[in-house]
């Protein structure tokens, strides 16, 4: 029983981390109708920027304080993501308005390759460290109830808390601010939003920038866990089932989807895996999402696809 709880907790926490990456996908799809396959590359790019800046800033400014280095690196990386968002909107999105889904998908894939190459050229291809002071050792709770206690990973717990805070902030942003309202209007209907005077191009830049900052937070947390190197981009492939399970247009869907996929993955690997030789996590997550899709073809919280004939 204790082990089951451990696995479930672990799954919930990893699920939150997947949800963090999935959030980027959802934000961009909601506002601009583009399925951003470059999200993984953006996570990597942002993480690389932050890791290298936190390394270089002490050299450039001579200030050795780690907090300063981390915060300043975060801000600088955020700026880099803003510039990236602006460039992508200007050079790519503006010219691809109204194209089919498949074309946009592949355009973002092209952007992904470009960002991959650019990130490695600017920042290098070794493993870099992001040290934001997250504790690495586990804690054991409930050892009165269960012998040996239940293992909880402190780093994952804090990361999940950060993710939850970010989601809360984003929800407040969408609900309470006027820019958030404008974003929701654009997500509903581009042309109607344009006709009432909402500047489409600026909204897209804002959305991609917000997605970039989300990618930065995700990159920071995953980078602190795994070290910043090329495989970080493959985390996006693990987060895709979360996106389709929760629905492409729903922020709470990304969170709930993340939790379901996280728990499902870990439980399947630990309990079903040994019978089939192991290594089933990745496809099990996709099959799980697929099963949900068979009942709700637009994801748990996604918008129903309505066809007019």
């Amino acid at each position, binding site marked *: 029983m204790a082990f089951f709880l451990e696995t479930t907790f672990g799954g919930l926490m990893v699920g939150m981390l997947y949800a963090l990456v999935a959030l980027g996908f959802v934000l961009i799809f909601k506002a601009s109708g583009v399925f951003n396959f470059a999200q993984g590359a953006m996570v990597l790019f942002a993480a690389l920027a932050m890791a290298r800046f936190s390394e270089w800033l002490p050299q450039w400014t001579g200030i050795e304080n780690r907090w300063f280095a981390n915060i300043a690196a975060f801000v600088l990386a955020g700026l880099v993501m803003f510039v990236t968002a602006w460039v992508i909107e200007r050079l790519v999105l503006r010219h691809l308005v109204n194209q089919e889904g498949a074309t946009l998908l592949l355009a973002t894939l092209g952007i992904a390759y470009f960002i991959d190459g650019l990130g490695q050229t600017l920042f290098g291809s070794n493993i870099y460290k992001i040290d934001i002071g997250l504790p690495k050792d586990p804690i054991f709770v409930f050892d009165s109830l269960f012998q040996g206690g239940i293992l909880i990973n402190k780093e994952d717990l804090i990361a999940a808390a950060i993710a939850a805070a970010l989601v809360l902030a984003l929800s407040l942003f969408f609900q309470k601010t006027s820019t958030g309202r404008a974003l929701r209007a654009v997500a509903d209907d581009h042309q109607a939003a344009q006709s009432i005077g909402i500047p489409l191009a600026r909204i897209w830049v804002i959305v991609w920038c917000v997605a970039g900052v989300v990618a930065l937070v995700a990159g920071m947390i995953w980078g602190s866990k795994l070290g910043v190197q090329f*495989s970080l981009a493959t985390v996006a492939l693990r987060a895709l089932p979360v996106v389709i399970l929760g629905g492409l247009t729903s922020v709470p869907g990304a969170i709930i989807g993340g939790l379901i996929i996280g728990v499902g993955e870990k439980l399947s690997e630990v309990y079903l895996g040994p019978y089939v030789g192991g290594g089933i996590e990745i496809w099990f997550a996709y099959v799980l999402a697929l099963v949900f899709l068979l009942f709700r073809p637009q994801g748990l919280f996604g918008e129903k696809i309505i066809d007019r004939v």
Partner: protein
Amino acid sequence: MKLKSLALAAAAVSALAGTAPAFAQAKEQFIPVLSYRTGAYAPNGAPWANGFVDYLKLVNARGGLNGVKLSFEECETGYDTARSVECYERLKSKGASFVQPLSTGATFAITEKAPADKIPVLTIGYGRSESADGTVFKWNFPIAGTYWVASDAILQAIGKKEGGLDKLKGKKIALVYHDSPYGKEPIPLLQERAKMLGFELQLLPVTAPGVEQKATWLQVRQNRPDYVLLWGWGVMNSTAIKEAQATGYPREKMYGVWWAGAEPDVKDVGDGAKGYNAVTMQHGAEPQSKLVKDVLAMVHDKGQGTGPKGDVGQVLYMRGAMSAMIGVEGIRAAQERFGKGKVMTGEQVRWGLENLNLTQAKLDALGFSGVMRPISTSCADHMGASWARIHTWDGAKWNFTSDWLQGDEQIIKPLVRSTAAKYASEKKLTPRTPDDCQS
């Protein structure tokens, strides 16, 4: 029309490329360097390539091989089999002396092509363990160690720690491995040993590239094995050690293979990897060796160094240098027989690699004293040596924590022979005759 314009365009491109400085001129021995400096395995592949190329430059700085200079060209494979095959096809026409795929997957693919192209495949410390049998694998040379040697050495080290191999009876040993031919290599030997010694072997595959291993290590925590063997590459290694820390598994009980025991795997984890052990293929991190001093003096100080100076002397750097050294010595041995000072063909280099006799004196003269032990290959034995040691990370550097170990020939040789025989029967190859061994 499409094909014709394609053919013309390609001809134009290759003509243009031909005007670039031509490699492999009359008096130069060409060595293709298949490496990966980008992609998921770059942090481990780049230091190896730096060591390899630096050693070739060192040979040239020392005057070449009896006057013959070495020329080389790097080709980026990204650890992808198809790209490795493409690099191999492109570079073999320049008169390749030998090829080092640096990827077990690519080794399998190139093994099929090399005999027809007459280019020896040098797989120092990786590749197919059964290719040590030279009577079946005429063109493969897993010199200095294979994965069966590595796993056997680890078991012996564990046995020494426990007070005897018989004390392993009833213990649990888990293998956390990269789900690929590379990771699966040690399994036959470990299963054989499990039967012999009575320990329970648990196999835990990690899907490449091994970015998320929580479920694997939760299973480790549940089963509580006495020892964990780590057979990873690239980011999988550091992730495994981090997850071990996160689930509280003692790092002292972890033993990695020589591709999972280098600086890129542990530097990131720092103190969290303290106590982590890995088997080494003779050498470890050797910053004090004469070779390092020579490279720094004759290559890096002249501004010719490949990669950062800090890499020189590190584990993977030394492995690259050692791989280059063995290849070059194979060419030198070929020159002894076929003509000193002449450029050797692939077939002649193959003979040289098969008749390699690196005595301690020769190794010391090359700068490897205290780093390597003698290697001697023959027609039947393409491995030549099976020495290994264990080194442990103390938070800042690697320290040797065992004596010299050797793979147990009583176990390994029969396994090599039977697996090689199986390969021969599948491919309908006739094992080589003693006359063929002399050629």
